[in-house]
């Protein structure tokens, strides 16, 4: 932590990072969120070593075994088993891989696409801007989950289609934010100076403007990440996303639904882990916004 306790001169990257970290870590919620998400990522990465069982292994002698704190529960299956005798804890651990990696891809796709379109719209203005913003308005006219469902129906249900559909639904938010930020920055002196120095369109857009528009985009990326986890789970729950027997959290809930009268644990834990993950990302996002938004900054 030496870099943080001895910040560089104002204006340097190290100074900015240090001041960002000071603001971010001032919020206890944001720190808790960050630690939780880091843990979930770690567990997902190390799934084969951390998970007590194979997530697909069906133990016919242990159907719907309750969690360990019940009289009939056992340490063998800490969170119990589902209707075909699979260990719920192991499935949740492997499920984290799907939820996190699909959501990360969603954010990556929609952020890159959104930044590109937003830069074009904000930089060139005119008809380019009109076309791009109109198309985004159309996307926003549909309730997001509905549009995603329609797209999945076209692409046929599955992991990739769910990913593409949700990325497309998230796209307009990135486009709007980038465009607004670019329009705000474009008339500033440093941009004019760079243009007078002979910078071309590409250099102006990606090297000069983009780095100065990143703050709101990073905040939006965390928001999109939590929305993506929810939407992926919702599609899985409706049978339109990741298909069984893949241990995706939403699909696990859908499978467990018919046993909710007799086996509450099969329903409770997948939903709880979705809620916790989304909640922690949102906490982290709030902290990021406070630390990155200059208007909120205590000076």
């Amino acid at each position, binding site marked *: 932590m030496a870099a943080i306790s001895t910040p560089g001169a104002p204006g340097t990257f190290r100074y900015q990072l240090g001041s960002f970290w000071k603001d971010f870590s001032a919020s206890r919620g944001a720190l808790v969120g960050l630690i939780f998400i880091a843990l979930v990522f770690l567990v997902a990465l190390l799934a084969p070593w951390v998970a007590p069982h194979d997530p697909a292994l069906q133990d016919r002698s242990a159907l719907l075994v309750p969690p360990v704190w019940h009289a009939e529960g056992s340490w063998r299956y800490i969170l119990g088993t589902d209707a075909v005798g699979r260990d719920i804890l192991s499935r949740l651990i492997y499920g984290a891989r799907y939820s996190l990696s699909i959501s990360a891809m969603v954010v990556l796709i929609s952020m890159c696409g959104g930044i590109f379109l937003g830069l074009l719209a904000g930089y060139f203005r005119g008809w380019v801007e009109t076309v791009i913003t109109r198309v985004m308005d159309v996307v926003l006219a549909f309730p997001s989950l*509905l549009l995603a469902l*329609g797209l999945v129906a076209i692409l046929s249900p599955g992991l990739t289609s769910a990913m593409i559909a949700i990325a497309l639904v998230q796209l307009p938010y990135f486009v709007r934010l980038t465009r607004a930020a670019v329009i705000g920055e474009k008339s500033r002196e440093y941009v004019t100076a760079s243009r007078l120095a002979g910078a071309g369109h590409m250099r102006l857009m990606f090297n000069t403007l983009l780095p100065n528009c990143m703050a709101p985009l990073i905040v939006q990326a965390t928001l999109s990440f939590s929305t993506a986890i*929810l939407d992926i789970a919702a599609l899985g729950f409706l049978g339109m996303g990741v298909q069984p027997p893949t241990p995706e959290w939403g699909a696990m809930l859908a499978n467990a639904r018919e046993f909710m009268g007799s086996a509450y644990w099969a329903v*409770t834990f997948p939903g709880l882990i979705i809620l916790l993950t989304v909640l922690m990302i949102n906490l982290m996002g709030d902290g990021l916004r406070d630390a990155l938004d200059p208007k909120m900054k205590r000076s």
Partner: protein
Amino acid sequence: MTSQTLTMFKFILVKLAQLVPTFIGVTIVAFAFIRLLPGDPILLMAGERGISAERYAQLQAQFGFDRPLPVQYWEFLKGLLHGDLGNSLVTHSPVVHEFFSRFPATLELSLFALTFAVIIGLPAGVLAAIRRGKTLDHTVVGISLTGYSMPIFWWGLLLIMFFSGTLGWTPVSGRISFMYFIEPVTGFMTIDTLLAGDWGAFLSALHHLILPAIVLGTIPLAVIARQTRSSMLEVLGEDYVRTARAKGLSSYRVIMVHTLRNALISVVTVIGLQVGLLLAGAILTETIFSWPGIGKWMIDAISRRDYPSVQGGLVLIAFIVMIVNLLVDVAYGVINPRIRH
């Protein structure tokens, strides 16, 4: 016409004109939907049983797939403007009819959900702002952040497990007990039962509404509480509030008259913007509670590959969202004159 109504009128016209490109875009998306499906749409619709060559040609002519695309789009648009969105492949009745016979169920559920969200979210946000930094504030902020992060399909299952399963208080699914048959007049079960003068049926309808309305209202509740709190805090910091306090007005009067009224401007907008969220949430809520509204209808249509219904549903829902957003914009212009100019 006074100049004020004239400005308002112009404001509405401009907003309407801005909607036209989006409207056309939505129709293009819906038109493209059936044509983007992988494979031949008619063979897809016919399903696994296959189809005779005669019937194929007949269907192709019926859907107009044999004509050039611009002509097909023009026909689609003409039908749309006449309220014709084709027929459902499953029930063979007009899609528009199918949609609007189920729409009141979704509307009733959404209105109850929104009422629930406003009745609890608004006071919670106000109280949190007044008690800023106190336990109550932290509780409201924490609960609303949790509600905002809630996977509502799971939330619905939990509530069913507890209230319907363990306690046996509420029904699991449907809009009304099988004991009652109510002739639909308005399509709103609560109103129709009252019109029929059947108290038992009315209570049964209310009973069926409670859990789905709570589930659907949870996220809007969180959003409204959050927005109310932050705009109250913003207004509480304004000079005129300090002046009102300095004049010696009671804190009740300062909060109710000077702060809340101004804070409500942004809250009203946020409430209006929940409509898209409610319709998306209705898909999940209706699936969980077997609520016979358009959300469940859309899911059924997708899984039965009833493409004309999916197409029609996409267009109609997008229109509803657009119109409500327009109304919200206009309402915002009415309560906040600065926007009009």
